[in-house]
């Protein structure tokens, strides 16, 4: 029975049994409480064919990506600076530590009072949700860079600028990429938080999905969000492998 120990067989078995249990549960409690996959899949196909959901999703993702890009542009340099400068670290750390444990949902009512519920609000929530995770990962990564590497650069008479571009930056790629991945997950979460609160975009659809008698619509939207999350994560993992081939080793040893 060696094939039964194969990890791909086990994975396929796991997915199949999860779907079976889901379907069985759905049939037992009824679609008002939990629609089974046989109801959710046609619903999903219909949602995609109808065109409204993909449109809303695309709009939501555009705003999310803008907030996320801003968070990367601000968070990565900030994290690297904190990692390499003691003074800067000491100045920024209390604030970053405090803000990273602050749940973005608790800021939502305040942000609405400050900037309204429009485009800026949604971008801002995504930014706040992701930026501190990006900062902290970049910070921890650059702080942990082996000082010997810098010493080697110095003994070859590298200038400070050259040390930064040729040694410190490549050494921190794996952490910047990990930060980008964690940040993207948080950005997607922030996007849904903002949209569910003011009922727009894909989050608004999720809110409305909760109002139907059948949960098939709601579950189809959740499956969509799951697909978005998995795709985003895999995409960044691919980018990571291309930009920093030494990344995977580091990642594997950390897991």
């Amino acid at each position, binding site marked *: 029975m060696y094939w039964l120990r194969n990890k791909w067989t086990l994975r396929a078995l*796991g997915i199949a049994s999860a779907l079976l249990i889901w379907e069985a549960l759905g049939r037992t409690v009824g679609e008002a409480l939990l629609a089974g996959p046989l109801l959710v899949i046609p619903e999903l196909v219909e949602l995609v064919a109808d065109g409204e959901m993909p449109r809303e999703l695309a709009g939501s993702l555009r705003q999310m990506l803008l907030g996320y890009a801003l968070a990367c542009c601000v968070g990565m340099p900030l994290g690297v600076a904190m990692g390499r400068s003691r003074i800067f670290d000491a100045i920024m750390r209390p604030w970053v530590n405090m803000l990273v444990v602050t749940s973005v949902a608790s800021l939502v009512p305040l942000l609405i009072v400050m900037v309204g519920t429009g485009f800026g609000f949604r971008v801002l929530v995504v930014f706040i949700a992701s930026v501190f995770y990006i900062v902290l990962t970049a910070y921890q990564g650059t702080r942990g860079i082996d000082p010997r590497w810098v010493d080697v650069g110095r003994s070859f008479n590298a200038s400070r600028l050259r040390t930064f571009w040729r040694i410190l930056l490549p050494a921190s790629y794996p952490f910047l990429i990990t930060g980008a991945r964690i940040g993207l997950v948080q950005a997607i979460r922030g996007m849904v938080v903002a949209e569910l609160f003011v009922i727009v975009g894909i989050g608004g659809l999720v809110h409305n999905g909760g109002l139907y008698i059948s949960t098939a619509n709601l579950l189809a939207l959740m499956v969509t969000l*799951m697909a978005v999350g998995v795709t985003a994560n895999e995409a960044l993992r691919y980018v990571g492998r291309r930009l920093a081939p030494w990344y995977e080793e580091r990642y594997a040893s950390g897991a």
Partner: protein
Amino acid sequence: MSLARQDAVPTYVVYAASLVVGLMIWEVAAQQIPRIIFAPPSVVAVELYNGFASGKLVVAFAGSLAHLVLGFVLAVAVGVPLGFLVGRNRTAFYLLDPTISGIYAVPPIAFVPFMIIWFGLFFEARVALVFLMSFIEIMVTVSAGARGIEQSYLDVARAFGARGRDALVKVMFPAVLPFVFTALRIGLVRAIHAMIVAELFFASANLGRVMKDAAQRFDTGGLLAVVVLLAVFGLIVQEVLKQIEARVIPWHVRD
């Protein structure tokens, strides 16, 4: 850290200075803009004081803690053993991993409408959301830790004749403890996040209620008071967990 990191001014002095300067900048900046946009820290401090003196914040906070604690304790009770099992048992890992990763990829806030359908709008729903949002995080962290237990530890234990129960209790449990603490800390941040999400998105209650009332009055001071309360609470709990960790597993060095 190395000797280069030691210097004359202790870090906590810089921290304190950074906090004081930051608060001063916030105070001066907030004085320039209307109070309904952003409140200065002096107003927030007064709000906090009044909230505690009148008992309003104390009652609300105690109410919030009730579902936070219950949901979190349940999440730990289920998440830690399950994470350990999934991490140590190869078959369980490959069977469950795709499903867990899938659920993990769904932004937790998207479960809110679902929680309403299953658990209503009140206490049960809040506990369920706290459980859900912290449970997955705890389980994933513990299973990653359990998977990463050094094989050499187990080999040494076996060489000295430890088998079954002994190996489990004397080698594996201590080896996985650092990850349990990490899981507790991450899980608690998520749980606090879920706590306030639940109070804002279900029938508003406790601290969420305080925030919604303040938002309706454009009382940014009141809003910030709750945000600060949550942030400080989050930091204190993290610090307490770190202290406990240092006592329980002194061999695990953490900077």
